[in-house]
């Protein structure tokens, strides 16, 4: 029985081995797109000429491969255009892969940083917590996690106690324990995921599509036309009612202070690395114009970074169709993605003249 007395040692040894080897296999829990974003950031290649950083609205909003071909056709320049995007418009989840990108591949010449913001009213109250979402805890290195945590300025809602005591905010030891837990789970998931082939998805165009079948990379072409069936029209009208309730970006609103600060931190990191940063605001369904006041508000919040937005397209001949070109309340349809790809192509050409 004496050896049984030390049986927990076996368990501790097992956990320690899993925690040690787990992160090396990167079999963390979560969608493939996150793993692919990190793999793209650490690709053995020089930095892209143009990098787009944003949410799934970027992923479904345009085709960097198509844009590269268009630019080559029109100017003869072969610009490498890449995109690092993730589902959920949470800027903190993009910070670690972007920092990895800068460290491994250097600074892109131009960065189109999406002004990512939460648009659903019901989740705004706790949008800043946890500062490091689960994806960060799993994939990011500890230094980056701690840096993001240290520099986070939570929104002030006039609560009786500091918001660092709020449910969901991770204290430092809790963050470390969660990181340890994520590493152990990654170790356990490695073999089944390897056998399933789940760890080999981030290659070729799939890597640039970040393994999402409905994101675009080398799959848009000029023959795509606008079409909307009666059924889709009804669906869009219903969705428009839902989108009407969405929150506007409004960077001067105190409830946006965390998001604006995080966007600024991201822009500053990129600028310090040598990139030229432009900020991008994308429309949602039913949102076809931007006022001068809104533009001035954004320019006041981000004075160093030029604003790029496609709202002007709604006043052109493609405008009426573009206004209807949404797959849901926020993501562009294939036709919408084609129009936005052309828009960004011309923006890149202007910036690289």
């Amino acid at each position, binding site marked *: *029985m004496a050896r*049984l007395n030390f*049986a927990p040692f076996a368990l501790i040894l097992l956990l320690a081995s899993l925690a040690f080897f787990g992160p090396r296999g990167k079999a963390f829990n979560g969608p493939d797109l996150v793993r692919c974003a990190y793999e793209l950031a650490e690709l053995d290649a020089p930095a892209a000429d143009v990098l787009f950083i944003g949410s799934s609205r970027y992923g479904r909003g345009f085709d960097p491969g198509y844009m590269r071909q268009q630019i080559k056709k029109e100017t003869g320049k072969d610009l490498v255009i890449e995109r690092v995007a993730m589902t959920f418009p949470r800027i903190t989840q993009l910070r670690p892969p972007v920092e990895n990108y800068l460290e491994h591949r250097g600074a892109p010449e131009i960065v189109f940083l999406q002004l990512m913001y939460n648009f659903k009213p019901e989740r705004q109250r706790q949008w800043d917590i946890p500062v490091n979402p689960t994806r960060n805890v799993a994939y990011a290195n500890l230094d980056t996690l701690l840096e993001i945590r240290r520099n986070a300025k939570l929104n002030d809602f*006039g*609560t*009786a106690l500091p918001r660092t005591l709020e449910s969901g905010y991770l204290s430092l030891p809790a963050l470390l*324990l969660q990181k340890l*837990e994520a590493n152990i789970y990654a170790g356990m998931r490695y073999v089944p995921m390897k056998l399933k082939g789940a760890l080999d998805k981030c290659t070729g165009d799939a890597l640039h599509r970040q393994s999402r079948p409905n994101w675009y990379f080398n799959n848009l072409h000029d023959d795509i036309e606008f079409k909307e069936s009666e059924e889709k029209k009804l669906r869009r009208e219903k969705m428009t009612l839902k989108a009407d309730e969405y929150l506007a970006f409004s960077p001067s609103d105190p409830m946006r202070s965390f998001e604006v600060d995080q966007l600024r931190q991201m822009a500053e990191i990129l600028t310090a690395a040598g990139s030229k940063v432009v900020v991008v605001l994308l429309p949602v369904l039913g949102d076809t114009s931007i006022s001068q006041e809104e533009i001035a508000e954004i320019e006041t919040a981000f004075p160093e970074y030029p604003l790029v937005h496609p709202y002007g397209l709604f006043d052109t001949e493609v405008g009426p169709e573009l206004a209807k070109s949404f797959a849901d309340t926020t993501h562009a349809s294939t036709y919408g993605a084609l129009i936005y790809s052309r828009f960004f192509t011309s923006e890149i050409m202007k910036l690289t003249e």
Partner: protein
Amino acid sequence: MQPLVHIILILLAWLICLPLPRAAAVHVLTVIGFSAVVIFAPIAAVFLLLTVVEAAFMVWLFNKFPRKSDLRQYGPYLLLLNLLFVDFHQLFLLMPVATLTISFSTIRIFMTAKQLLSSRKTLPISETYWLLPAAFFLPALVIGPVFSGTLLRDQNRKGNFEQPVLRDYRMMLLGFLLAVLLSPAFGGVSNIMERYEHGIFFMIWVLLFSSVVCGVLGAITYCGTLFPAFWISPTGQLPTPVESADFQRFLVSLAQVDGSIRASIHISAA
């Protein structure tokens, strides 16, 4: 606090307990339990400390009354009002806070106070110390159960500490495996099941619950302590050896009978 983190902390407690006398285990588990609550739910830690102080004050105050007096018998029920903190704290704190273990611990504090006040002997005030293990006993933080801190005291004073046997090792390993395999799968599908399949949701919850209890039961035997019986009456009735044995058997069989279901969950989790 996830089941895996819970088990890691218990293993940490075991390492600390190794060079110490076995009687120290309950105190080590209490200190680490308190630290865990501070780490994961700081407001809950403060609130539970206040509840312990409140209970200690009640014990001190009501102890002055005759044993059969209504105040001494029913006064401690006031502690149960503290359970309302879980549902109403947002009204005055204006923000949600983690309420980890408040429900289980408040009931355990209440049961301890009740037990202390039911004593026929003169009660030294130092006995109120056992309100602390009732509040912060690490193995009981996440999944309960409820019991009186006086049971931990009695176990500690008897001095005949349990030696781990093969069953404890199996239970610890089984609990660990279930907790790490079942917990992520459960988290992933719980929202869907909660909406559509209450039966399955409940079944998997029971499996997860039983697996964590098994792991914890097995692991703390190594520290030299045991869980007090599950269904001790709050009115002061002490658990009988039969009840304790039944409880152990119930958990072991719950973990063993459902092997096939677990196997399928393991595969889907992987």
